């Protein structure tokens, strides 16, 4: 299977976008998962519903909302542009879209993991002088590592496959925002493009497969490390 240079670029970009999407959204997903698992506050169910939104809305709508918010003329976008952060037509925008689409998946996996951690361990750390941050970093975080890993895999897979929101938000610029799914989509638009589409689909499946295999292997190691197996 040989690839055109542009296809290589799409593969490389997809990887870059997915990795960044996961890396950047992970801390927020962890914070949100922890919040939803451990704290009771008014409006918690609403927050949880909000987190699920990108799942419920058609990706195109999400992309459109992103455009309205983070576009060059969007409310947040204009303000961020002053800080030198631009999403429109950049790979960063593709990463943002992928991160937002994968967010509910990551949060749920992490939330389930936090719910399984015994709060008594955190109490013990508290009596040893650990403040809230130290408790979280030194105790909770290592113990929810399997859940974080599961969330990261889901987020990565989702990012590799994300298309609707991405193309609506940042269009399809080869080398900047043309990810594998955009390239696949373009192939499917012309008669006879199926073979090209299948070639790229196999590629993205292979990447995701690799990610899942690595995560399964990591999960075993983590489980051993925290004494679960």
């Amino acid at each position, binding site marked *: 299977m040989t690839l055109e240079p542009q296809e290589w670029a799409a593969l490389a970009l997809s990887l870059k976008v997915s990795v960044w999407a996961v890396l950047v959204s992970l801390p927020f997903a962890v914070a949100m998962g922890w919040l939803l698992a451990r704290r009771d506050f008014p409006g918690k169910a609403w927050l949880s519903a909000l987190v699920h939104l990108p799942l419920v809305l058609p990706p195109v709508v999400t992309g459109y909302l992103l455009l309205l918010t983070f576009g*060059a003329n969007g409310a947040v976008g204009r303000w961020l542009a002053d800080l030198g952060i631009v999403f429109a037509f950049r790979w960063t925008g593709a990463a943002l879209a992928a991160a937002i689409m994968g967010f509910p998946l990551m949060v749920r996996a992490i939330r389930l993991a936090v719910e399984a951690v015994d709060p008594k361990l955190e109490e013990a750390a508290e009596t040893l002088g650990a403040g809230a941050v130290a408790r979280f970093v030194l105790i909770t975080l290592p113990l929810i590592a399997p859940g974080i890993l599961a969330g990261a895999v889901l987020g990565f897979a989702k990012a590799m496959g994300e298309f609707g929101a991405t*193309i609506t938000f940042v269009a399809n610029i080869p080398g900047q925002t043309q990810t594998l799914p955009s390239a696949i989509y373009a192939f499917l638009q012309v*008669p006879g493009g199926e073979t090209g589409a299948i070639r790229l689909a196999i590629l993205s499946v292979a990447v995701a497969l690799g990610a899942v295999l690595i995560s399964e292997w990591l999960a075993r190691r983590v489980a051993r490390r925290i004494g679960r197996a």
Partner: protein
Amino acid sequence: PARAEETVTVFAAASLRGALEAAVEGFPARVVVSYGGSGVLARQVTQGAPADLVFLANAVWMDWLEERGALVPDTRRDLLGNALVLVAPAGAPALDAVTPAALVARLDGGRLAIGNTLGVPAGIYGREWLTTAGLWPELRPHLAETENVRAALALVARGEAPLGVVYASDAEAEPGVRVVHAVDPALHAPIVYPAALVAGRGGPVARALLAHLSEPPAQAAFAAQGFRPLGATP
């Protein structure tokens, strides 16, 4: 011969939404339309979709269907035409010249929004125009290709892209943009919207609908949405 209790199912290109609804006003039978991308519609038809009539946004996919024998022979006709326009956000100044330098200057680091130049019909026509007009090499690095022409229009209307290549019909309906250049139809393949009856499904009612769409009242309805009427019944 159509009666009200009968139903025709039309698989139509998504860009026809609205116009098609207006055009079937007064047709006696019930018309059900499933909108989608032309490629998707064509593939669905070959997989046994319950479509009586297909109405696509370009000829390529209709050719593809024809090759596969999916159409009732001799029912294909080009019902509509359209034109390409170059649009800018509503408040933007007019464009003095359509030269590479002028366009790049207007983009000023921004992007030219256009449908996917390999897959989306508007993008394919647009690419053809840019190529024949000698603009392609300079503009190519400045394109933002979209999933469909509506997304390109939205980018311009939102001010995300300073320029966009869209159909005249779309530009007409969008108050957020102004047309800064009307593309010479001679510089690209004719923009046509072919329709045909689906083999094995399209019956008399569908045939009647196809005829109805070619007639002046329907054609006028399309024209009102910015499409170019083509349809004299053969």
